[in-house]
């Protein structure tokens, strides 16, 4: 990754295009030990009974994917993701392609941090999950 000195406001991260399958969504829910009440993350029928269009991806999984965009960018450097904030705007459905974007909005030389807007879009460019991340470029 670039050093703190080399990054600029307006630089982009990604985009990271992902097809999240229903099986991947179920694998996440299983790994997390989501039990009772997790039907909306594992089963279309259960999700429809709750008024959803079908299975949805857990909010925490979206947070994990948005974080991945940033940690992919960090790579194996010692920069540290210090903060990730997410807002769940629209339910994210599996078996669709989503694209994750990032954009550097601020750079603070005093504490060597960068602020990054991150968001997940569907095929119609609708923003499903939005967020902000802070990365500290440790020396």
């Amino acid at each position: 990754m670039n050093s703190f000195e080399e990054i600029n406001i307006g630089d982009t991260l990604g985009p990271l295009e992902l097809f999240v399958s229903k099986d991947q969504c179920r694998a996440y829910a299983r790994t997390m030990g989501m039990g009772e009440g997790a039907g909306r993350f594992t089963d279309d029928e259960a999700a429809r009974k709750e008024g959803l269009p079908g299975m949805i991806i857990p909010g925490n999984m979206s947070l994990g994917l948005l974080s991945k965009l940033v940690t992919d960018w960090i790579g194996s450097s010692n920069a540290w993701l210090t903060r990730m904030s997410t807002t769940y705007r629209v339910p994210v459905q599996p078996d669709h392609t989503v694209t994750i974007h990032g954009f550097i909005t601020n750079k603070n030389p005093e504490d060597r941090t960068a602020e990054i807007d991150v968001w997940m879009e569907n095929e119609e460019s609708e923003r499903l999950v939005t967020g902000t991340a802070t990365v500290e470029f440790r020396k």
Partner: protein
Amino acid sequence: MAVNYDPALINKVFEITEPVEVKAEKIQRYCAALGETNPIYTDEEAAKKGPYGGIVAPPSFAVTFRNGRHFFENVPRFGMRGFDAGKDVEFVAPIRPGDNVTLSSHVKEIYEKTGRTGMMVFVVIRSTLKNQNDEVLAHIDHRFMNRP
């Protein structure tokens, strides 16, 4: 109309969970579920040469710890439907395999906001993750939205 609640609710820790051991295998499964390939999370040999001297969990692993048996019983509600509106996570230190993690939770704030769809009440619960050495690993703010 201001939202009414008992101010004694704020900052009172309502639950500390039993310690949960972070198993290397769980980090692997988490990485697989997210399609994670960064060697500092997935490859022990490569991770040894990385900034943390060994495998660490991806930062977002912090949100995977169970909130404790009484968590939802302690989230104040305002007689309305509740939704998970989002999270605000501060990652303080890496989570490593073998760590024993506890969560303590308290109500951080309650506020109201009027949006496109009318009045909403937000309840923010802060959970703090610590390891066996009492070091803070992360603070997680859960934002719950209540709407009529």
